[in-house]
């Protein structure tokens, strides 16, 4: 089964159809998506700016992550769910959409960056947990994350200007 068949099936589901056909549902789900993504990117930036030594630098990094990231994940769940609903409404044309592909690529890179940071860079975090100047890999992870989330939002906005259903 190829991707177009799957997208066609997705698009034909009753949820996708009602989102596509209702003048109220698509904008509302989209507004929730924007709200959730805004909080995800912003709260990730809180951690990134701490890693870069720009903000909250007298706060333990581990404590900051424990405080902030559960909310980030909650918002991410909401963003992923609303995003999936939006995509399903016009899955066939979205599957060929360049800005969407770029957005997903940047999202995947952000995920890899996060995994690398948590599994590798954080291994000796007890040594720099309270430090203003974090090790180079940690600062690079922060900078990469900031940049990737800016690109994700830019591509997300671009989708709205590119997709003709």
């Amino acid at each position: 089964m190829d991707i177009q068949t799957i997208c066609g099936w997705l698009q034909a589901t009753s949820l996708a159809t009602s989102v596509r056909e209702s003048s109220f549902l698509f904008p509302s789900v989209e507004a929730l998506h924007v709200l959730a993504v805004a909080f995800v990117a912003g709260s990730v930036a809180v951690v990134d700016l701490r890693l870069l030594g720009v903000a909250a630098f007298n706060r333990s990094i581990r404590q900051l992550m424990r405080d902030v990231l559960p909310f980030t994940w909650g918002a991410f769940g909401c963003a992923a769910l609303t995003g999936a609903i939006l995509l399903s409404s016009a899955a066939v044309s979205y599957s060929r959409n360049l800005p969407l592909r770029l957005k997903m690529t940047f999202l995947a890179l952000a995920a890899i960056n996060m995994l690398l940071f948590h599994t590798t860079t954080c291994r000796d975090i007890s040594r720099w947990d309270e430090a203003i100047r974090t090790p180079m890999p940690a600062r690079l992870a922060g900078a990469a994350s900031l940049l990737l989330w800016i690109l994700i939002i830019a591509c997300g906005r671009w989708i709205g200007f590119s997709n003709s259903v």
Partner: protein
Amino acid sequence: MLQDTTTWIANTQLSEVLRSVEWVIPAVQTVHILSISAIITCVFLIDLRILSLFSRSLPIDIIKRRLLPWLWGSLAMVALSGSLLIAAEPDRSLTNVAFGIKMSLLIPAVVIAAFRHRGTRWKEICCEGTSSSGMKDKFIAVVSLLLWGGVVFAGRWIAYFGTG
């Protein structure tokens, strides 16, 4: 009269320049959303802290002191990018019902944020001991969350509302 104003704005040189380059409006919108992202994060974290859901080990005043400067900076960015978007397409916003709702929600939301900035007096009245807050503060935090959520919601709806 509003129509005259939007026509006048649309005919200014700035408006024409902004519309003439294809990528300018999406780019300014992206800056607008990124700034909103910073605002939403600052406001939500302060509200969640007041509701004792976020970072309970830090006093409320410290959270406010850290986040409010970012909030005002981002608000300036939002105002600037938003003004450019209005200048580029005045008919898309000024005569739009969703835009009107957005602005009506924005004003009380910013007033709440401004009151928080006053800090000390606010602290003395509402946040005794600064680690927990009273019912009044918690109520205002919920109102603030709803107002800002509404601002983003109405903002996205601008694209779907026909102009009046």
